[in-house]
């Protein structure tokens, strides 16, 4: 019987990563709390641990590492990026630096680091006691954005225009440390990056559409960004400097930047592949599968690349203008590029409602913008998403 000499990796992740790892002939230790049964069947070693107990997780993984050394630890879940960095550091193996993971996880830390390095971010104040939020907002001047410093997972930011909004946001967040930021007005961009040994490559720049209301939900993306080659390059350089300041050494990132009155302002860094259908979009227009890239970087392998298959993409989130019960023509789900998270009969909230947001995505690819717009309209016409007002609301 031949010895198992496959590279070995520990990860906290979902189905997509497990599939990628299976296709790469990599021995996989899958950490879960618990590990879902379908994924446990696919991993070489499913390891059920309390992911909130870092010391216990270290002990369990350390025992496995002692018997069969691991090459790397990584995660694509925001919540577990710091744990992966901690395990890599404690076991002395590859992985995103713990400091970088924490700097991306905690928004107050992120702001402090970027400030310290002279990378532009919104003016901000950190408040540990929610009662200090209103004085902080008044000090910065309205409008402001209130954020949970940790654990927001994309739903913890609310735009506030007055004291009453702040009081509502504080109640919504329900305690914990808060970041109060000046609101930055301007177009937003999403930048995908790969960093290897501290050297960052910008994979692509997307124009991001942001919705109305306190939550400012994502409503869509366009590729190319519309900034032109020079504009993309300048934005890329800004992002590279930000990731360097945050201590990014090995990993992929999804970065959001706004161009304010005084130039680019860093809004957020997620130290993982982008969500939704942005990985698929990036693979089509840039020739890089960001999930596979995350694994390649973790293992110290060259990032796999192929030729892009489209030069333009139009990505629109499915959102609604009112609350109610959703309906659409299900046959349209067979069209390529249609992804819905709701089924007919489900209840939805409007995009500008704190409970609302995106309920699906429509993505079309091509080489000419007019054709993209026609394709998008055709998909939309066949899907016919609609909302029936519900008395419950």
């Amino acid at each position, binding site marked *: 019987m031949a010895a198992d000499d496959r590279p070995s990796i520990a990860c906290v992740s979902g189905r997509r990563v497990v599939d990628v790892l299976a296709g790469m002939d990599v021995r996989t230790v899958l950490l879960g709390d618990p590990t879902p049964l379908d994924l446990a069947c696919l991993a070489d070693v499913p390891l059920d641990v309390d992911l909130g107990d870092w010391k216990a997780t270290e002990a369990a993984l350390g025992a496995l590492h002692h018997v069969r050394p691991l090459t790397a630890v990584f995660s694509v879940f925001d919540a577990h990026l710091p744990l992966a960095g901690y395990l890599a550091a404690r076991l002395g193996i590859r992985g995103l630096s713990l400091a970088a993971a924490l700097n991306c996880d905690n928004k107050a*830390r992120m702001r402090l680091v970027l400030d310290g390095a002279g990378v532009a971010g919104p003016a901000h104040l950190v408040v540990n006691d929610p009662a200090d939020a209103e004085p902080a907002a008044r000090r910065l001047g309205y409008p402001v954005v209130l954020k949970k410093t940790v654990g927001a997972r994309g739903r913890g930011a609310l735009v506030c225009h007055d004291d009453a909004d702040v009081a509502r946001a504080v109640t919504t967040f329900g305690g914990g*440390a808060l970041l109060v930021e000046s609101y930055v007005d301007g177009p937003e961009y999403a930048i995908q990056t790969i960093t290897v040994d501290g050297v960052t490559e910008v994979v692509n720049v997307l124009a991001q559409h942001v919705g109305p209301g306190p939550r400012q939900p994502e409503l869509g993306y366009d590729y190319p960004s519309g900034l032109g080659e020079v504009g993309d390059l300048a934005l890329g350089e800004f992002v590279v400097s930000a990731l360097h300041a945050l201590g990014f050494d090995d990993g992929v990132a999804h970065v959001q930047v706004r161009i304010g009155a005084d130039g680019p302002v860093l809004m957020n860094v997620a130290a993982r592949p982008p969500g939704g259908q942005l990985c698929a979009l990036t693979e089509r227009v840039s020739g890089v599968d960001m999930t596979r890239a995350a694994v390649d970087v973790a293992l110290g392998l060259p990032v796999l690349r192929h030729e892009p298959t489209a030069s333009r993409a139009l990505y629109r989130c499915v959102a609604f203008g009112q609350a109610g019960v959703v309906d659409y023509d299900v046959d349209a789900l067979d069209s390529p590029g249609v992804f819905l998270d709701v089924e007919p009969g489900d209840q939805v909230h409007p995009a500008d409602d704190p409970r609302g947001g995106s309920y699906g995505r429509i993505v079309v690819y091509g080489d000419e913008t007019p054709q993209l717009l026609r394709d998008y309209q055709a998909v939309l016409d066949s899907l016919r998403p609609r909302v029936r007002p519900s008395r419950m609301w």
Partner: protein
Amino acid sequence: MTITDVVGGRRVEVVRGVAGLDREVWNAVVRAAGGSVFHSWEWLAAFEEAPPGVFEPAHQLAYDGDRLIGVCPAYLVHHCPRLDRIAETAGIEFGGPVLLAHSLAAFVGGPIVVPDHPEAEDVLMSGLADTATALGAWAWGAVNLPAGRLVGRLIGAGYATAQVNTTYLLDTGHASVEDYWSTFRSKHRRELQRERRVLTQRGIRIAESTPDVDTHVRLVHGVVTDHGASLDVLPEDFLRALHRHLAPYDRSLTATDLSGDAIAVFAAYEFGAQRSLWLAGLDVDRLDSFGPYRPMLVTAVESAVTAGIPRVNLGRGNPAPKRRVGAVAAPLYLALASDDRARTALLHAALRELERDGTAHEDVGNGCC
């Protein structure tokens, strides 16, 4: 110990006690740097004379040629009740002494530098790391660092950090006391005026004065024990040493009753452009609550406005009345590093836990200062 060429030809000198520091030169730099009483020579002298724990001084001094351009008080901490409490909450055991700049007892720590040499901050922190290695420290760092670019640079450099305290600052650059009062909402103004009247009717008088040291210790310890905190964070000898050494800067407020007995005190010190209300004391046998607290806060602010002091540090804990008189929260951070990746990971995990817990600084802060 002298370390040269730390950054850009600057020199860092390490001095192992206040006896080796020129008091006037040191204090002049602290004043020029905008520092407060907590960086003053006298504070360090009191701390060294009667430390609340086991500390070895290792103060850092940055020079440009012969000119002192920045200072960073620091101690190799072998035992500190406040740090022990933080370690316990964070679930970490330090594997040896920690070189800390400088003390959890002070409202502010870390390096301070003259305005024309901002680079000296990094020089001093670099010197601190070198000194830690030379002294065999298990870890090193700074405590009660105000939020700002230095904290950001330390986090960027890989220091583990956590917010461990919140202090409340009040800008007192008002033209007059009446101007200060005009910043209040009328409802709050009436409330405060009523509280003052009630005190007056009860014969309680608030004045800028310092009680004798025995009374001072008794009142301060009264509050500490009343909050269920241990006296080891503010031992009697330490309070007495501070009372004596900081006398030149004393701007304490004392509340007395009809018989002239001191029933409450705010131990306050003025150094440079800042007045700091460091400790509160109360006769817990005669008062079951700190009735004079808010009127004393307002009196302290009025006094600073009248004296032309631009900023008052109202200290840690008890945020509601401080907010009511116009103070704003200012986070204070602990930043720790080591020269070992696995050990630094432990520090990160511990300080993350501390910040998630969110009660460590309340216990230490509210109970004592």
